[in-house]
């Protein structure tokens, strides 16, 4: 047999072997048998020197071609086998994607804090500051400075927690002498006192909200808590109008309850605002037609508000002729109830993980 026949036979043999190879190992054995040190093709390449010089170029060219074909065939088969192998591996790796994932179970924020932060963010967006003050206040900051008359029922021990005063008469505004025969020191019943503190220490323009815990002697039941959360707001600036108040409330309430909600302003009475009003939003359950949720009225009462009474500004050393303003207050628990239809407010205070983790 001539060398060229041998080369062709090797090429044919390799083509056959490659097609038959079912694994990388078989393919490698085939490669070694042809291209390895003792391989058939290697042997032929080595024996090239024994050929007559005139035969060498043609035979060399043929040998190189065969070698290139063998390489290519091996490579192609290797890629095919690798792809098949990957498919098999992936098939073996398939899982039930409906099995639960591996979760990190982060904690949740208390419902009231969520609403509080949401409201803070809305008002920060309008350029307000967020202010804070003491929970334990004097009657001056909680009532008198806010224009609440001495005999206002809210001052009575039925509506206010008074605490023991360890040093009667030592706080400023000592003219407050136990108006209700109890003490001049109390747990704040509203966050309004913060407004007085802010007006005392800073000059207008004032744009602020004061969210915080307040206390009233209501025995805890489904609809009452002796400790709850209020958010009040105050604006004092030149030229502030009732229209400014309405625009601000409309914007705020739609941010909280949705763009499609209507608002209603009902004149009302509060000692520290005049004109005063209560603000309702249209019921989200019935869209204002009237249902069980809104007791058939189509409206849900949300906040009390009004233009700051000039007495309050004067009490805080602000020129009530130059500046006007508005103030508003709302209960955060009330918003929570309206949004989530909570059956019992006490859930907010138990720390029940099953409740907290819902929000």
């Amino acid at each position: 047999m001539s060398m060229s026949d041998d080369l062709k036979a090797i090429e044919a043999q390799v083509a056959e072997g490659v097609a038959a190879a079912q694994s990388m190992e078989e393919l490698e054995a085939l490669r070694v048998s042809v291209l390895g040190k003792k391989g058939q093709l290697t042997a032929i390449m080595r024996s090239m020197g024994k050929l007559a010089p005139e035969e060498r170029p043609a035979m060399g060219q043929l040998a190189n071609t065969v070698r290139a074909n063998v390489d290519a065939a091996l490579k192609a088969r290797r890629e095919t086998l690798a792809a098949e192998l990957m498919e098999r591996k992936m098939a073996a790796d398939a899982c039930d994607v409906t099995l639960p994932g591996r979760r990190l179970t982060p904690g949740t924020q208390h419902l009231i804090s969520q609403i509080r932060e949401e409201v803070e963010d809305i008002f920060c967006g309008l350029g307000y500051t967020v202010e804070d003050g003491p929970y334990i206040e004097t009657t001056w900051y909680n009532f008198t400075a806010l224009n609440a008359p001495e005999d206002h029922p809210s001052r009575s021990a039925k509506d206010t927690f008074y605490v023991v005063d360890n040093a009667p008469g030592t706080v400023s505004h000592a003219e407050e002498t136990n108006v209700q025969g109890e003490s001049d020191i109390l747990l704040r019943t509203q966050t309004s006192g913060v407004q007085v503190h802010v007006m005392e220490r800073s000059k207008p323009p004032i744009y602020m909200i004061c969210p915080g815990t307040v206390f009233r002697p209501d025995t805890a039941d489904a609809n009452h808590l002796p400790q709850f959360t209020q958010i009040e707001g105050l604006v004092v600036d030149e030229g502030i109008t009732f229209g400014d108040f309405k625009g601000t409330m409309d914007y705020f309430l739609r941010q909280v309850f949705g763009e499609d909600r209507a608002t209603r302003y009902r004149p009302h009475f509060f000692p520290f605002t005049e004109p005063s009003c209560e603000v309702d939003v249209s019921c989200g359950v019935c869209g204002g037609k009237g249902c069980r949720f809104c007791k058939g009225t189509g409206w849900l009462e949300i906040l009390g508000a009004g233009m700051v009474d000039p007495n309050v500004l004067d009490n805080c050393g602000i020129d009530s002729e130059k500046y006007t303003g508005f103030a508003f207050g709302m209960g955060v628990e009330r918003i929570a109830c309206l949004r989530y239809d909570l059956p019992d407010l006490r859930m907010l205070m138990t720390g029940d993980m099953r409740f907290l983790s819902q929000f």
Partner: protein
Amino acid sequence: MRISYEWLKSMVDVPEDPAELVAEFTRTGTEVEAVEKVGANLEHVVTAQVVSKKPHPDSDHMWLCQVSVGDKNVDADGNPVPLQIVCGAQNFNEGDHIVCAMIGAVLPGDFKIKKSKLRGVESCGMNCSARELGLGSDHEGIMILPEDAPVGMDFTDYLGTSDTVIDCEITPNRPDCLSMTGMAVEVAAILDEDTHVELPSVKAEKGPDAADLVDVTIDDPELCSRYTARVVRGVKIGPSPEWLARRVAAAGGRSINNVVDVTNYVMYLTGQPLHAFDLGKLTERDGRRHIVVRAAGDGEKLVTLDGQERTLTPDMCVITDDGHTPVALAGVMGGLDSEITEDTTDVLLESANFSSGHTSRTSRNLDLMSEASIRYERKVDGTNCANVAEIAAALFEECCGAEVCPGIVDVYPGEADDAPVQITLRPSRTRLIGGADIPEEFMVARLRRLGCSVERAGEDALSVVAPTNRPDLTREVDLIEEVVRLWGEGDIAPTIPAARNHAGGLTPEQRRVRRIGQVLRSCGLSETSTYCFAATDDLARLGIPETGRGVPVKIIRPLVAEQSEMRRDLLPGLLRSVAYNLDHGVSNVALYEIGRVFFGHESKSLPDEPSYVCGVLCGRRADDAWNQRFDEYDFFDAKGVVEELLDALRVTKVRFKAADPEQYPWLQPGRAAEVVAGGGQVVGWVGNVHPRGLRAMGVEAPVVAFELSQAALLRLAADQLSYQDIPTLPGVDVDLAIVVDESVTCETLMQRIGSAGGKLLSDVRLFDVYRDPVRVGEGKKSMAFSLTYRAADRTLTSEEVEKAHAKLVTKVCKSTGGEVRS
């Protein structure tokens, strides 16, 4: 305030449909609580008579009655048959005329009357109270009709015309609206209509002058600014005429007799409370009765009309008979002894003005509210007392057959204070505050409708005098409020203020407090809220010393004993929440709260109110899952949370020092650490809560907890620390296991390794702690560290690393007494 539409209609033109007025009330600030139809739609409700009344065989408070309803209930032959009705009321007798709801009736509030059995006895209807019929608030007993009432008549027909009652809530600034005349003025102003109020006057005065029969002394004008007395003689006590009884009922009162009804009617009409004394029961001296109005004595007693004996205080005001015996609690309720009875013939009528503050406190302190006290509390129009007495006297004449004595005794020390004030209203200011272009003509017209006198007093000035029954109108802004509410707050265009020269947003501290919450939540803790109240023994139960926590802030009248003071630590509240969860079958609890505590001072009025961050962990992070297992929370879970938090706040120089059990007796010794940062500043603690304290709080599972001072966290928190180069050259990792005595802490070892490693040591990580009495030795532990050596400027050779490591090992072993574990 209950407003009879029929009555209102007689004084001002109102829309046919009360709903239209209700909408106008809402728009202008009168809150409507309910609208009731009375006298209509009361089918199957008939007038009736009690034929017999016997005790229920199986109840000690119910009665078994036979009630005749005339021919409304007949047998097969058409003969009237009484109904058997079981009734729980106590105020009726056999023979009384009553109102009966028969089977099929539907009473207000969708209350359907059906045949029923009460304690085994069949009942075929119900005897009705006024409230059940929507005729008033009286629910003390069933409604008793006059003896001449027919039996078996449809109750609607018996009542005559039907009426609508609008029940309004009147805000405390509007005493005028607690009267029908005041309400008529308000409605006239809302609707821009005229009022047409006709008030009766006495036709003929007879007999001796009132001043010859009565004199009045006011001890303290602060308690009583005016007291008028009229005298009528020869009254014939009896039922009221039907119109009077109906109006009293519509207003929410109960018809008692003609004299009492007249005083109540006139009060509902004018807002001026009246009181009728039986003149004959007052002591006569020198031919006259002597009314003395004075402060009550401390502990003085008076039996009020409701039969209760009241103990009085000097803050209260009493009407006395000649200065001695109290006969009425001024402004609140009359006394039982001088009450009008069937035998009364001569009446002393009081129309007076008592201090709103004293009346309001008296009523509150005695827990005794009356129609009179509600009105005095909000201020009564002192200028009107005599006019109102005239109206009442005229009605005594008309409805009680009385002779009215000429004249009135009128003591009026507060007259000067009752004078109306002049207020200047600037239309421009009104428009500015309202934010609406309200025409001056509107202001003038509506203020006049409200009873103000209004005159132009300059370019931008109206001179306004408010009516004397409007104590709420004393300043310009009070008038602006009136104009704005009548204009319609809803009609003012919304705008948003420009807020020039003002910037808002959260402060860095506020953002950091939010960050604290975010980190704790990402660590798996849920935020909760607990009460700021505490029980007096909360600290003691856990063994938390009072040192450094001031004195407790004590609540004067706590609602419950467990909430009698303000908390001085957050831990007790959170442990209660853990107990709540465990008691309700929730075993995995991870909670945190950021809240205030209250440290009172012995010699200061106001306490300190620092905020703390407290967390509790109990059980496991989650129940085991198909691909995850969780261990019970231990000390290192809580410590890990604290470390994450301090890291996130960029707090530096953090150290955890074994907590001294003397200082932290509420924590488990050996499982608690004091958290120190920033070079020795105590931030708080972390550790296992002492099992003894847990038991005292009702927690039957281990709890790890931490409590950190918010102030310290915020003080030590820093902005992002500066950037560190990321290594570009490879480091060499070498493991080192070193056996040391148990007493050598991880912190010590880390420090020694750090200082021995020199510049080339770039990282140290503890990856194992191993104890074995045989392989490691008793009282010893093996600590395995992974050390990384690296130079920033070159790749280290193995010789360099080996040299550095050998030096480190020698130094560390020497300084800690440890040896390398091979």
